[in-house]
């Protein structure tokens, strides 16, 4: 492995990979990264949550009427992107089962629009892409999964746009509150159905608490699994956030006082006597400022950007930056950029499938149909917004560097290369993307390739391109 120059590190370790137009940059890599600490594209053309909830409501109402009319069994709602032709066939069947005037299931269309806005837009435009990488990081930290249910499937993109994007350079407290109060998260982790045992909504005494969201906030989003909380804290916190749910009329977050467990609750040894929604907000603010949260976030950021086993000194610096600035994320990122540990010249992280595909697309300026991006990511083992669980996608080499994963990446790199070879020479591209950071070994392997497309495929599968 060649030693990577600071700019190659900036673009690959902290960014989305060099684009064919920008190539390997020169200058002060740290300054260039800090210059990209600007709000990411808000993707404002896409519909907000209330509009999507409205579309969903119309569709579901029509489906209910339809089922009554035809007495059809409820169709299973699997996750959308199958092969395009399969989808087309399924759609046809679906339409045949529906009344002529029934609206289409919005999930697929919305998902494709959301994917396209990123893969044809916001992921291509930045020179480095640090801000988009942070969006991806936080969207995975506060993961929701499109295959959880139809509503979560429709809202996953809006969730990332509304709850994550605007807050990645703000305070962690705001990011935390906006993520936990978004309808997508509340539905993904069942909190809209959680009923306080002594609430007005449980007068008959047949319904109760759902601890799912409370547990994941503590275990995944804030303190971390060893963050010092007990089962009693989970239960109390779950009671605190009863009532955090949906306002069906507004198609957005709503606090349902009827579901809220009345009275004070004790979480992590502190009593919270606030009423209603304020009780949950108070707990979230304290969780955001907790030292365990600082450590947990510091470790995850360091692991994501720098190394699977990050240097403890780096984690400590980030944690201190987090605490000192009261969770100001900009300060934390500046600490990350300034730390010498972040600039080890030996790239060790294996790119995730998503990062790898984006890097190939940017390197070749390939236009890829959104449906093909979706199926490709799925085949590579990282379908968009569809992690295996609330803990999001893994962030370590042992998960991504598998024979199956490598096999799929080979195929993807190959397909992309066949098309790109009409326009690009792998030797020139390797130079433009990596400059002197491309090892002699890789250079030779590319130069000896049997064809232009094989040369590109070798470049995209080279250690320099696979790692960051």
């Amino acid at each position, binding site marked *: 492995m060649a030693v990577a120059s600071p700019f190659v590190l900036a673009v690959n370790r902290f960014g989305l990979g060099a684009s064919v137009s920008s190539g390997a940059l020169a200058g002060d890599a740290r300054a260039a990264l800090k210059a990209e600490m600007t709000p990411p594209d808000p993707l404002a053309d896409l519909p907000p949550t209330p509009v999507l909830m409205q579309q969903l409501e119309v569709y579901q109402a029509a489906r209910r009427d339809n089922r009554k009319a035809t007495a059809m069994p409820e169709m299973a709602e699997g996750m959308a992107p199958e092969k395009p032709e399969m989808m087309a066939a399924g759609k046809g069947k679906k339409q045949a089962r529906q009344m002529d005037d029934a609206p289409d299931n919005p999930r697929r269309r919305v998902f494709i629009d959301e994917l396209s806005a990123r893969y044809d837009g916001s992921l291509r435009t930045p020179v480095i892409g640090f801000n988009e990488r942070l969006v991806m990081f936080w969207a995975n930290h506060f993961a929701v999964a499109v295959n959880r249910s139809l509503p979560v499937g429709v809202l996953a993109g809006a969730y990332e746009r509304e709850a994550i994007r605007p807050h990645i350079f703000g305070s962690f407290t705001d990011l935390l509150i906006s993520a936990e109060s978004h309808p997508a998260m509340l539905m993904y982790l069942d909190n809209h159905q959680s009923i306080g045992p002594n609430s007005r909504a449980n007068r008959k005494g047949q319904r109760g608490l759902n601890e799912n969201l409370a547990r994941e906030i503590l275990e995944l989003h804030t303190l971390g699994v060893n963050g010092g909380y007990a089962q009693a804290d989970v239960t109390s916190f779950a009671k605190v956030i009863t009532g955090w749910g949906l306002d069906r009329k507004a198609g957005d977050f709503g606090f349902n006082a009827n579901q809220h467990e009345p009275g004070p609750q004790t979480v992590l040894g502190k009593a919270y006597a606030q009423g209603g929604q304020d009780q949950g907000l108070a707990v979230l603010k304290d969780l955001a400022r907790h030292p365990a949260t600082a450590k947990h976030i510091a470790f995850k950021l360091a692991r994501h950007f720098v190394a699977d086993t990050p240097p403890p000194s780096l984690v400590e610096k980030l944690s201190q930056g987090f605490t000192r600035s009261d969770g100001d994320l900009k300060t934390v990122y500046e600490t990350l950029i300034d730390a010498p540990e972040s600039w080890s010249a030996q790239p060790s992280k294996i790119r995730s499938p998503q990062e790898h595909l984006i890097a190939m697309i940017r390197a070749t300026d390939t236009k890829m149909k959104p449906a093909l991006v979706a199926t490709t990511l799925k085949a590579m083992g990282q379908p968009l917004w569809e992690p295996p669980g609330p803990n999001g996608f893994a962030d370590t080499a042992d998960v991504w560097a598998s024979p199956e994963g490598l096999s799929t990446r080979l195929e993807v790199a190959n397909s992309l290369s066949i098309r790109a070879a009409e326009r690009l020479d792998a030797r020139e591209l390797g130079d433009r993307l990596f400059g002197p950071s491309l090892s002699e070994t890789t250079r030779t392997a590319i130069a000896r390739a*049997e064809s232009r497309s*094989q040369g590109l495929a*070798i470049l995209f599968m080279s250690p320099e391109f696979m790692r960051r």
Partner: protein
Amino acid sequence: MTIHRRNLLGLMGASAAFGGFGMAQAATGRDPRFVTIILRGALDGLSAVPPVGDPDFDRVRGELASIKADALPLNDLFALNPAMPQFARLYKAGQGAVVHAVASSYRERSHFDGQDILESGQEKTGFTRSGWMNRLLTVMPKGQGAPIRGLGVGATTPLVMRGEAEVLGWAPSSLSPVDPDLPARLMALYEQSDPLLYRVLTEGVETGKIAANMTQTNARGGSADPAMMVQMAQGAANLMAQPEGPRLAALAFDGWDTHAQETARLTKLLGGLDQAIAAFETTLGPAWQDTTILVVTEFGRTVNPNGTKGTDHGTGTVAFLAGGAVKGGRVIGDWPGLKDGQLYENRDLMPTTDLRAVIKGIAADQFGVSASSLSATVFPGSERVAPIKGLIA
């Protein structure tokens, strides 16, 4: 994962894309077809058409000389690789010819640059916008009918057919982007520079999750797969057989970079090429009589074998001509010999024929393209390269 598949531009059935017969018919009284098959990776001409009558053959070829035993005789000096019985049959019937010790104007040893020169028809590298076959479309003599159309076969159109003239694209639906040689090359790269990726790739190959190479597995679906070569040939021939179909076509077959295990690999690859030529003959039907297939590669390989039962990049090699329009039964070219002093840079077969002379000969005799167009447009700067006369019956 499927690659982007290009659809035929409304070619199936009666289409308005083609009106009447090709113009060349008016010029020559025939309705000629011309196919170029590019072999990417550099075919070893000394294994494809071994000069078994050369006194130095056994000495310089070492263990690679063993193909002599089963080779199919062509004349006193040359035999044909035993994997090509169909071509041997065509040769005997006067419908197949070999040009030996041939090369493009390229004299370095990079596949990329070699293929660029071979396909672009330019004397220098760096030209990748248009190929000589596409420019040939633009200089066809003006006749009465609709212009002659070109066809590019494969996931993308080979450079030789790309350019200003609009061409059709077609690929077998089952063509997969598999590159049987890629895992082996990455294996070598990872072995030198990335232990983790090397371990994972090795495991993938050992468990069969990743196809190691063509000799170990039946790498299916790519253009180095003999079955796929045949499919590509059949598809192209189907279109070219139609009264209003394309008349020029370009295909590319991968996998010819035989640095190791050359004899086994060429048996498979040349077998595929042989079947593909036969598929053209069968599928074109009566149109075969008016067809020329030209098989070319970017350069040849070293005269001496390397240490892994293969050969490294060289210079002079062979080109094949097949089809009813070919004046066959001949091996064309001046044989330079295999003695040390007769080799190019003391290692490669010395090129004695310029490939452009072959192509110019076909274009002039089969399509009536003028010498000035050939030297100015199709092969710029080739005034000194005279067309070889009499290749076309």
